[in-house]
């Protein structure tokens, strides 16, 4: 499912887009967690086709994504990183989005849309 369609399903807005072509990239997996070690434990083989869905809005969500070669994060409940944290995302060429949905609602919609969990 391409990111543009995922964002439509979640009614998500962009916070920062480093690369506009990301909108047409196909995504297969999603890592859904607020615990960064849980994200780090679930390594989908294709980081560029995985995004992180989280309510954790500080720089560590961005650093965790970086370690996993993930460059797309969607925050739930309208959360937006503070400027210092956002600067980390900009420096690391992340693509950041936010949805008003809860983690539960967003996860349900993504599951229905066919997204897979990031595998061990």
């Amino acid at each position, binding site marked *: 499912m391409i990111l543009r369609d995922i964002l439509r399903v979640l009614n998500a807005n962009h916070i920062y887009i480093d690369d506009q072509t990301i909108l047409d990239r196909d995504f297969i997996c999603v890592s859904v967690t607020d*615990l960064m070690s849980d994200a780090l434990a679930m390594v989908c083989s294709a980081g560029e086709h995985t995004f992180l869905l*989280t309510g954790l809005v*500080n720089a*560590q969500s961005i650093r965790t994504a*970086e370690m996993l070669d993930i460059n797309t994060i969607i925050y739930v409940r309208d959360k937006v990183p503070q400027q210092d944290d956002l600067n980390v995302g900009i420096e690391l060429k992340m693509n950041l989005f936010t949805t008003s949905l809860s983690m539960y609602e967003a996860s349900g919609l993504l599951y229905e849309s066919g997204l897979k969990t990031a595998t061990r």
Partner: protein
Amino acid sequence: MMKYSYVINKDDYINAGKVSSQIKKILKELNVRPDILRRMAIACYEAEINMIIHSFGGEITLVIDNKAEFIFKDIGPGIKDITLAMKPGYSTANERARELGFGAGMGLVNIKKVSDEFNIESSTKGTILTLRFDLL
């Protein structure tokens, strides 16, 4: 042989992950295979965070020749029960660490899982975590 060393300070949450980020860039420039690079980045980041959260501070050393070896050496207070610390879900992380998304109790478990060799020794004088990765 190449050697890189970085000092890590206790409770330095603002800079948490910066060293791992720098190391990842170096490994990328050295053309380390992407799947190995990702495993090394995960291990380094988890261990760096552990050092910030749990230790009095220490040093990360990376040595690269035909293999890559990480040495995470801190100055205490040591891990009371390593067997317990290796158990998935067990955590002694404080509130500040949890606010940052850590304290899942998966740190050492993740590190061991992604490393080709894993060795940990700990006393009240400090902990030494040694990790090795095959680069081929």
